[in-house]
């Protein structure tokens, strides 16, 4: 398993030219969506080849949708496997959601209900992905806007159940935990506390939009808010050093603004993961809480 630490940046076409011209040293790795590069040539392929030569690269999928009930498209899995091998991906993550029905794609992340059938569907699908791709699989907790369980912590219980049934890892999106906590009124730290820290393989942070009616939408179109920095620091103190990725997909600012955010995240990262600051916090889920 690749040991990858520090702050990375989602590599997107909007800032690729500036990024490749500057090759910022504060960025320790980049992440790409395979769906944006598989079977594609032109500028995307050239950018991918250049960035791969200069940075460690992680992959994060958009269409495996671990809660989907359609069978996997075998041709797509073969393409994905080929891509993951090509870029030597240490693991591959995708979302805990569904994304359409009967062959149609909504191209968005629709929320799963946190019930047993969904746990089983997700677990089966993750195991199929593990077998087909021959790489470690991690799932990402998503933002959701319609209530899916009895309380906000049902999602954490759902994630823990999937972790236990599959042996997969979690790609913890700290911003999504925060957004959901505000939209559904729960303590985000309690949510984080339920996830076994050793199962967290990577983290995401991003900015989100607060609508006039108060609903928070995970847009990836704003700067990371102060509360998410705090929650990231809290999480890193539990996990120790794990790769943290800044995502920005909309309203992409000049690269220097993103580098400034990466630097600020780096300060939080260093503070939280310095040896004397990282607490060996036991998790509720591994049964050792309170010991």
């Amino acid at each position, binding site marked *: 398993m690749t040991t990858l630490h520090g702050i990375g940046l989602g590599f997107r076409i909007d800032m690729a030219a500036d990024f490749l011209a500057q090759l910022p040293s504060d960025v320790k790795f980049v992440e790409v969506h395979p*769906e*944006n590069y*598989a*079977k*594609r*040539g*032109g*500028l*995307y*392929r*050239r950018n991918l080849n250049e960035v791969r030569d200069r940075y460690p690269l992680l992959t994060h999928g*958009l*269409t495996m949708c671990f*809660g*989907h*009930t359609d069978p996997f*498209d075998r041709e*797509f899995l073969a393409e994905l496997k080929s891509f993951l091998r090509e870029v030597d991906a240490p693991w591959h993550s995708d979302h805990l959601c*569904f994304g*359409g*029905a*009967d*062959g*149609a*794609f*909504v*191209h*968005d992340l*629709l929320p*799963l*209900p946190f019930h047993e*059938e*969904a746990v089983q*569907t997700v677990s089966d699908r993750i195991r199929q992905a593990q077998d087909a791709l021959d790489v470690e699989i991690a799932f990402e907790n998503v933002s959701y*806007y*319609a*209530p899916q369980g009895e309380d906000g912590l049902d999602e954490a219980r759902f994630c823990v159940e999937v972790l236990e049934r599959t042996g997969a890892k979690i790609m913890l999106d700290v911003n999504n935990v925060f957004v959901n906590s505000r939209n559904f009124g729960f303590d985000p730290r309690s949510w984080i506390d339920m996830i076994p820290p050793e199962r967290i393989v990577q983290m995401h942070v991003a900015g989100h939009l607060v609508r006039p009616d108060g*609903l928070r*939408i995970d847009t990836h179109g704003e700067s990371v808010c102060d509360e998410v920095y705090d929650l990231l620091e809290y999480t890193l103190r539990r996990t120790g050093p794990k790769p943290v990725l800044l995502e920005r997909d909309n309203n992409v600012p000049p690269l220097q603004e993103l580098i400034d955010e990466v630097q600020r995240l780096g300060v939080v990262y260093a503070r939280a993961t310095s040896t004397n600051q990282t607490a060996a916090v036991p998790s509720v889920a591994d049964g050792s809480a309170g010991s």
Partner: protein
Amino acid sequence: MSLRERERAAARVCFDAVPSDEDLALLGSVERWRDYRSMVRARLTRVVGAAMPRLVAALGTERFEHACTEWLAAAPPTERYFRHVPEGFLAQQQSAFDADTKSPWLGELARFELMAWRILHVDDRDVPPVGPLSFERPIVMNPALEMIDLRYDVQPHADPHRDAYEKKPLHLLMYRSAEFKAITLLLNPLARDLVVAWTDPANADQTLAALTQEVAKRRDTRTGPKFIESLATLLEDYLGRGIVLGSRSDSVPSP
């Protein structure tokens, strides 16, 4: 409600022309699932607009929204790769654009813009081994290349305020340049037939000389010094532009 029923209800909420109260109620939060519907539809229509901006401008907001509503209700996207979504839109709407009597160039404008979008993204890695150009070997063309025959000149106007396209039959070649731009070249009928012959996968094992002579014969064109000179100029230009990559270096030429 099973997970599958839930998926189907959510898909209908996102794609139906008007979401049903029954589906919204099944999913549990009418307001929030209307939000999901808006987000999904906005994202899908945005990529169509990115691929075909002049078509969208020609349609106007109201007609474009109507076209998207028809498309999503009749043929929800089955394209896994987001960049392919505009193909589904046009496949569903092409006949309506072609039948437009007020703007008879609409269908061709849509085809032209989508071709440019496709050219930018097409995977060009699957080419045979390439050596120097030789008439005695099969020619290798840039995979990021397409031909289109038009009745109207729907290329971008120099004047962006012009909103119609003149009737003018054209043969166009579009290719992706080394700078990753979609470049259009106007071809005469002979050049068009040559490029069609050179790019036809069925001719992959034919030598450049054989294909060229075949086209010239079919068009009753004399392959004298003037023809050879014009052909050499064309090939030199195409090599410089990256339209022609060279000749296959792995094949034994046909006798």
